[in-house]
Structure formats: structure tokens, C-alpha cells
């Protein structure tokens, strides 16, 4: 649950000296726990009293589901786009098995134009 003193911390965490919200609330919650109220009951009580903004994370229902799912949807869409673009790039480039392709890095061949270009670039940097 979120503290309502403006600190943005949870009720359990807020230690702002000016906070008049968390301390009484923590005492109240302690009392409810002693009376044997369950976690769900306590949360429901405060949700009813203060509204949804008391919950420190969106519920997993309705419109709020969007909050939880959107980051992953975006990631999958982004990843999909990336794979698509890379696929187009790969069809542009010589296939690895073709004779014109270079040997794997780490085994430089003086006749490989690509590696030669790289070598020259790097030599230029060293100059």
C-alpha cells in the first residue's frame, strides 16, 4: 500500500518525519492483524476507504492489465520488428557458406577484402 503523505513510498517504508499518514495506519493494520483479519480483508478495507490509489501497484484486472502487459507487448513487438529487419539485412549480405564470404573472424586471411578493410581502418586508428 502506498503512503498518502506525498512521499511515493509504501506505508511500510515511509519514514518521512513530516508524514502523518503511515504511523497511524501501521498501528491500525497491526490492530487488524491481531483481530485475525486476513491480508485480503485488510487490503479490501483500505481500498474501499481510500480508493485504488492506496494500492502501490495496479491490480491485474480490466484496464490495469494494460499497465502490466504493455511493456512486454512492446518488447515482443520491438523484438519482432528487429528480427524482420535483420532478416532483410541477411538476404542482402552474402550467405556465410558462399565462397565470397569471409572466413570466421579470428582466422584472418590476407585475401579477404572485408577483413582487409577492417585491418586498414584499425591501422589508421593506431597511427
Amino acid at each position, binding site marked *: 500500500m502506498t503512503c498518502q503523505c506525498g512521499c*511515493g513510498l509504501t506505508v511500510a517504508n515511509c519514514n*518521512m518525519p513530516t508524514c502523518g499518514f503511515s504511523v497511524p495506519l501501521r498501528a491500525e493494520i497491526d490492530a487488524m492483524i491481531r483481530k485475525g483479519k486476513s491480508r485480503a480483508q485488510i487490503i479490501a478495507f483500505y481500498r474501499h476507504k481510500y480508493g485504488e490509489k492506496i494500492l*502501490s*501497484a495496479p491490480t491485474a484486472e480490466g484496464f490495469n492489465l494494460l499497465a502490466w502487459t504493455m511493456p512486454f507487448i512492446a518488447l515482443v513487438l520491438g523484438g519482432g520488428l*528487429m528480427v524482420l529487419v535483420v532478416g532483410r*539485412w*541477411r538476404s542482402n549480405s552474402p550467405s556465410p557458406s558462399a565462397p565470397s564470404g*569471409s572466413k570466421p573472424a*579470428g582466422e584472418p586471411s590476407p585475401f579477404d577484402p572485408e577483413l582487409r578493410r577492417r585491418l586498414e581502418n584499425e591501422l*589508421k586508428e593506431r597511427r
Partner: protein
Amino acid sequence: MPELGNLALAIALILAVYSIGANIYGARRNAPDFIVSARHAIWSMCAMITIAVVVLWVALLRSDFSLEYVASYSSTTLPTAYKFTALWAGQQGSLLLWAWLLAIFTSVAAFQNRRRNPDTAPYALAVLAGVAIFFLWMLNFVTRPFDLLAVIPAEGTDLNPLLQNYWMAIHPPSLYTGYVSASVPFAFGAAALITGKLDDGWIRSTRRWAIFSWFFLTLGNIFGARWAYEVLGWGGYWAWDPVENAAFMPWLVMTAYLHSVMIQERKDMLKVWNLSLIGLAFGLTLFGTFITRSGVISSVHSFTQSGLGPYFLSFLIAVTLAYTGLLIFRSKQLRSPAEFESYLSREAAFLFNNLILVGITFAVFWGTIFPVLSEAVRGVKITVGPPFFNRVNAPLALGLVFLTGIGPLIAWRRTTPDNLVRSFAAPVAIGVATGILGAVAGLRQWYVLTAFSLGAFVIGTVLVEFRRGMNARRHMMNEPRAKALVNLVAKNNRRYGGYVIHVGVIVAFIGIVGSSFFRTEVKKSVHAGDSFTIGSYTLRFLGFSEVDTPHLASATARIEVLGRDGREITVMTPAKLFYVRAQQPATLVAIRSTPVSDLYVVLAGIDDSGKTATLEVFLTPLVFWLWAGGVLMALGTVIVMWPNVRERAAIATVLSRSSSDPNELADLVGPGGH
């Protein structure tokens, strides 16, 4: 004096407008005189803003309460150091600081480019001056730092107690430096789009700026976290507060940018992507200021709320539209023949790195604005707090850590299974061994085990790289071990500095995981002489001591800390403070930091009789390593930015040949990535 400040700001605005006209006219008509004149205008603008800053500082130091700003954020009893830092405590002052930094960086960029980049520099400087105009406009017409009060109060209302802390003295300037210096690469990117010179010249010319910006964004975030840790008194350092997020997002995007530009420099691809990233980074710095200033999203850090939101939002929208328009306008020219051979390549590792970094940025952005969306769509206020961000970002962070290990060791283009085994056998072994060790030691949380294993794996890859490089030098140059190591880093400072940064990130990550999963907390009300235990420590409350000054009243608890063997380790002195002017209480936490865990003591309350203290004690394992990781990141960045003698010689050679080809020079100024 205040009139001088107002006048200086007005002249600065006029000079900024003039420099844009002169730069553009000079560039279009090929009139070097105008370009020189524009440069001088920029330097004069910087001088004018400097005058304004000095005027405000003098007013603060002299407690000149005829100024509204001084009366609101200072007092006669405020310690001198905080009078100095009160410059950025309020909105007008922090915008002034922003404008000042921007003017300084623009001036430096103008100086660097007096001969370089003759085609693009005038436009880049015009873009920077355009941004300066926005801030100067605000300072001149909307939120004026030199407004006078009709009635001069005898005493000021004082600086917010939360800001009277040394981390607050350095956190905002660091963060602002990071924010504002990101404008330079952005401006050169925009200039590349405007002029159509779309090669990687703009990236190479501003490489150091980008790293500089990243460096200060890193420091700004770490200092802010440290401030929260020491001041807010809840034992944590990061609460995914909107303002923290606003500082974190540009850091994420700049990190992505610094990696992806290496692909463009090497393979001439991803042009659109890199231009978009730098645009996004710049936009996010404005967005950060927008949400802290507007009050649209409430936050613990926004000490300066006001009605500036619409101005920032309009500027943000205008910049976004203009920049996107330019990207679309140039989209045909930006197409480049891209090559890509295999997913087992460094290109691919960098692409995934970018995907995850931008993914995290999006998640953070989404969580930050979701309350606003919810209110707009459902009319219900909700909170998106730490549980959300932690749960969404935790898996992404693991992916990123994994890539940190893969990226540097995998070859460009493609790599063979043979190579993979050779490079990764030892690091994988180290990672797996760490995991097994952790499990044997009793760690059961899968996330912690995975995080520690992956962290060890990454550190393993870096060790392998250092060893490989060192051995090569030892054999080829016959150098002894230590000398080989030093030379290895000195001669390839970009590459090995980068590795040090990676280790710093991992070390900080381990600190974050450890402190998030294993924190314990004890809350006790005690009389003098009472003791209680937490972890292996025994704490005994000895009593209070009180100090009253006109500025600050404090009650300090003395607490003796004993180790397991009963020997005294230290005495800790957490305190409750009361700031007299502001009539506000505050807490001063006591922290005893060791690499294993931090003992963090808060004096939460004193009962009315003045005999009982309520103590809240946190034992936070490994949090030490978060700060250590920050230091390593900073150190690595310094290594990366260290001026390279060879590089300078190369620049000098080209200059003496008075090369007419700016690209050649740019090539030498920013040699390609490793």
C-alpha cells in the same frame, strides 16, 4: 544588482537569437564572417548568463531578501555552503543553472568547431542556441529569478531541510550536467539531418560529449540514490519515484546509444536508429524536467512545482515534431546497405542490448505515465509504485546482464562454435560454480541465484579478456605482468575502460539484488541502558544529548554497537532535527557501512517524557557494492575519456597539413570503437 541580472538575461536572449540568424546566414551564403560573429555572440551569451548566475549567488550569500528567490530559499542562519547550493533549490534558480550549463557547453562546442565541421557546426550551434532561447525565454518572461518583493522580509523562509545535505549539493548539478550535455550530440544529429551530411561525422564529433553526458547521468543517478538513502530514512535508496525515473530514462537511452553507434561506425548501418536514440535521449531530458516542474505526476523530489508544465510540454512537442519531420524528410538518404550475417555476432548482441535497454525505458515510462492514463480513461486515480517496476524490470535486467557478458567477447560478423567455446568456457564455469556455491550456502531464491551466477559470468569474461590481452603483451613486448597490464589499459583505454564500466554495472547490480532481497528490520522502543540485537549486532541505547542553535535544534541518541563477541565496535548517533525557520522536522540517520552489510539506524521517535527512544534499525546486506559499483563506473568512464596521446598527435598532424577534408579529421578525433 537585481537589475543587472535581469539586464544580463535579456541581452543573453537577444544574443542567442542573433547567433542563430548569423550562423544560418553564414552557412547558407558561405560567409565565414557571420559564422565568426555568431561564435562571438554565443560566447557573449555565456558571459551574460554567467553574470546573472553570479548576481544571484551574491544575493544569496548576502541574504538580500528583497529578492523573492532569496527570501524563499535561504535565511540568515543557513550555512554558507547551502546558501551557495540554494541556487538550484528553486525553480528559477535551477532553470538558470540549466541555461548556464547549456551556454557553457554551447560555447565549448563552438570553440571545438571553429575549424572542424564547417558544414554542420553552424546548424548544430543554431539548434543549441534554439534550446537556449527556450530557457532564456522562461527566465525572462515566465519564471524570473530576479523578481523583487514589495515588502522586504527580515528573514527568509529557509531552504527545505531535505535539501540541506551535501549530496543535494552535488546531485542536481551532476544530473543537470548530464541532461544538458546530451543536447550537444543531439544538436549535431539534428544538424546532420538539416544539412543532409548523414555519414557518421556527427557521431564521431560528439563521441566525447556523449560519454561525458553518460558519465554525469551516472553520477547524478548514484548521488540521488545516495541522497535518498541518507536523508529519507527508510533504509532504501530507490523508490521508482517519477523524478528518479526521469533521471534514469535518459541514462538508459544514452547507454543504448553509446553501444549502437559502434555498429554505425564500423558497419555504416543503423543510421535512423542512432538519430532516433539521441533524439529520444534529448526528449527524455525535457520530459524529466516537464514532470518535475508541472506537478502532473506527484513526486517526493519535486521541490519546485509550478505552472510551467504547458510551456515544457509545448516545447517538447515542437521539438519532437520538428525532429521526426526531419527524419522522415531524410528517410530516403538514410537508407544504407546493411549487412548482417549471424545472430552469433557482436552486432546481434548490441541489437539485443538496445532492444532491452529501450524496453526497460519504455516500461519505466509506461509505469510513470500510467496513473495519468488511468485517470484520463477511467477517471480513477491509481498508484504505480515500486512493486510494479521491480517485477517488470527484474527479468529484463537479467537479460541485460547476460548480454554484458556476451557482447564484448563475441566476434563481429559471426562467430564459430569453436570460438564460442574458447571464449566462454572459463566464464561459464565461473558463473555455474558461483551458482552452485550460492545454493550450497543456502540461497534459495531463483532470482538471486541467477543474478549472482550471471554477474560472476560477466566478471569472468572481463577477467579472461584482461588476461588474454596481458599475456599477448607479455609475449610480444616482453613486458612484466604489471607493466603489461598498465600498458594494455593505457593503449586501449576505450576498450578496457569499457570493461571497467561493465564490472561497475555488475557490482552495482549485485548490490541492488542483495540489498533488495535480504534486508531485515527491527523496530524497538528503548530506555537508556536497554539493548537489543539485529543480525550479529547488539545495540545498546545510552541516552540523548540535545543541541539548540537558532538554525537547528537536534536530539541525538547515542547507541553503542557490540559485535557477536560482545566487544564494542562503534558508537552510532542518529538524530532527530528540527529546522527552526522552516518549522520542519527531519531525521539524521546513522550508517555503519561494511562490504558485508550496512547497519542503518533511524531515531524514529522520542516520547514526551524524553526518556524513551523509538529506534528503527535496518540491516541491509551488500548495499555497499552499489556505491562501489558507482565508483567503478565513474573510474571506467574516466579511463575511456582519458586523452590519448596518439590521438592528439594525429589531430595535430592533420591540422598542420591543414586538411580541407573535415571527415578525415573527424575520423582521427574519434577513432572507431574497439
